[in-house]
């Protein structure tokens, strides 16, 4: 049987996927609010059919993507509509496809004077409605609890929500996350809103490059193992075939 080849193949497939995920991390090293990802693998033990040897074989399978939701570095930009969350929580955004969540707080205002993401989706306040600014007043000030005021007038409060189970969130691209239907967002009490700041991705370049090297070397190792297995088989055929 060519079992070592199949085991090797399963490893190579997961390594290729791990490379894809590392490539995505590196490509998004400069994306605000991006959270780094890692492929989780598991062993899949199986008993070979009709084998005289009862030892089980362990294949490698990808079982999930782990997301590291740790805080990214905050950079001061001074822009009035750049808002970052320090601590737990996400901004709530209303898109055409439904509610989404994001850590990317580089907001702007649209032509209806609503606070929106750069894609034009309204950012929701803690009351679930968009935040509408008054163009005739001075530029908005955003307090650490998310409340927005222009001069003496209070405009609203930017909603910050968290989820008990972060693993259930799915990325949908455009820096947005989607929560499953049954997950209830909880108003985050400990997330501090910082105006004039941008949260960078939490990608650590050194770690990613190390992963990259590790993945390529592991791939080569497996390839060599497969070659040697093949060698063994061909030598066995040739040697056993010789008489005398």
């Amino acid at each position, binding site marked *: 049987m060519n079992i070592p080849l199949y085991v090797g193949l399963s490893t190579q497939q997961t390594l290729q996927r791990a490379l*894809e995920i590392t490539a995505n991390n*590196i490509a998004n090293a400069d994306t605000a609010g991006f959270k780094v990802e890692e492929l989780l693998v598991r062993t899949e033990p199986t008993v070979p059919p009709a084998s005289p040897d009862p030892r089980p074989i362990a294949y490698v399978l990808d079982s999930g993507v782990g997301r590291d939701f740790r805080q990214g570095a905050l950079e001061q930009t001074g822009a009035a509509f750049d808002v970052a969350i320090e601590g737990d929580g996400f901004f709530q955004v209303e898109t055409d496809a439904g509610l989404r969540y994001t850590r990317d707080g580089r907001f702007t205002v649209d032509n209806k004077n609503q606070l929106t993401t750069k894609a034009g989706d309204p950012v929701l306040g803690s009351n679930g409605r968009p935040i509408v600014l008054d163009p005739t007043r001075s530029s908005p000030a955003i307090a650490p609890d998310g409340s927005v005021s222009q001069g003496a007038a209070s405009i609203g409060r930017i909603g910050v929500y968290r989820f008990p189970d972060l693993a259930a969130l799915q990325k949908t691209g455009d820096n947005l996350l989607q929560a499953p239907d049954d997950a209830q967002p909880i108003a985050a009490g400990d997330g501090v809103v910082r105006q004039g700041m941008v949260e960078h991705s939490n990608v650590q370049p050194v770690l990613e490059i190390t992963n990259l090297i590790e993945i390529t070397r592991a791939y080569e190792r497996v390839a060599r193992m497969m070659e040697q297995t093949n060698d063994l088989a061909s030598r066995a055929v040739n040697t056993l075939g010789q008489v005398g």
Partner: protein
Amino acid sequence: MRALRTAATGMAAQQLNVEVISNNIANMNTVGFKKQRAEFQDLLYQSVERAGAQSSVGGTIVPTGVQVGSGVKAGSVYRITEQGSLTQTGNKLDIAIDGRGFFQVLLPSGETAYTRAGNFSVSPTGQIVTAEGYTVQPAMTVPQGATDVSISADGQVQATIAGQVAPQAIGQIQIASFFNEAGLEAIGDNLLMESAASGPANLGPPAANGFGKLKQGYTESSNVDAVSEVTALIVAQRAYEMNSKVITAADQMLSTASQLKS
């Protein structure tokens, strides 16, 4: 191999980043220039294994799922409309806006453009014009024989004429503001045009209703900060290199696979 394409999107994004940074640095000494910033977003994710899918007949479910991202894209190039510092020039017709607002400029095509660059001068017919010779709106003519022009913080323009004691009012500058200043479309020559994203212009006299006040004898410098641009350049270059490393790694893996002896 998807990793190759993913890394290519990363390199393209960093290339755009360097282009934006170089434009900022090139315009460091442009009057009224507002720096720009390339902003990135992650691309679509492909769910290879859905979270919540059954992983065995026993009813166990996949807790997290495998989602593979496909790289990065430029979401927007955003103009940061932060106030630039005001530089004293002593020139009578250099006007800076301290706060919100744009001067209105009549283009030869008849359209109105908007600018923060208030380094104006006088045309042969006495009109106040921009450095390109476009008339500043509302049009004002400095009378012949004027010895001095004074512009107040709220936009009153007065000329002192030789032989007359009282200065003569020659006009009132109106400035424009927009809901979304970052949505204005740049057309070069320090000029911006109204767009669907910016919303309609809201006109009014300076120093009232949230408009900035005028300062005569000053120009607004660009808000480009040399140190932060150079830092951004270094970061962009390193990020570009890292993405190229990914391409090398993916290429190496492909070559390992293709050199397997059968």
